[in-house]
């Protein structure tokens, strides 16, 4: 799965730590999602989309391998 989390974070001027605190996870979780090592649950993806005020599809996209 491809994600635009890093770009969206930069637009909103949020650090990994800020975003982690906003959605109640650890900074390592945000880092892992950005690196594509960890695919978040639907609940977490929806929380992220709420922070960036964008639909989930605009932040997360299916990869060819998915």
């Amino acid at each position, binding site marked *: 799965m491809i994600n635009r989390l890093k770009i969206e974070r930069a637009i909103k001027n949020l650090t990994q730590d800020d975003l*982690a605190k906003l959605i*109640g*996870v*650890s900074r*390592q*979780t945000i*880092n*892992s999602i950005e*690196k594509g*090592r*960890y695919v*978040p*649950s639907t609940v*977490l993806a929806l929380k992220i989309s709420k922070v960036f005020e964008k639909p989930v599809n605009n932040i997360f996209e299916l990869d060819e391998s998915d």
Partner: protein
Amino acid sequence: MELKSILIIAVAIIFFGLMVWMFHGKSEKEVFKKLKLFPRWFKYLGLVLIVISATVPFSFDLNLLYDGKNYIGVQGANLGLFLICFARDKIEDEMTNLIRLKSFYRSVIFGFLYVIVMDTGSYIMGNKFNEMPAYQLVFYIMSFYIFSYYITKSKIRSDK
């Protein structure tokens, strides 16, 4: 009836009672809700317990050794490992739960392979089966779980 038989029956009743309590009449959502873990400070309590269990029976003349072996210490160390295994982290989220699950999976596989290898090895080499005490297997499984969990977490933390 022998004491051992009574103990086995009691453990079986407690086991089935726990199973019924955990799963009876609960919806799927309730069964799969967040893991219940000990408070964070139980980790330090566990460490202290392990250090005490490993040193006290040898340090003082308390008659805690049986045939020169520290059986009570091993049980104490197992309890300490158990507290460390099930103590909360600073932040518990879905990725932590996944790391826990994977670490348990690895440690159970490790324990199973350990039993198979030790049994087969001692049969081939000494023509007899290895009699491994349960507490030893529990000790290895929990140690491997802790090793796997913290190695995975530190790898994630160091990967900037």
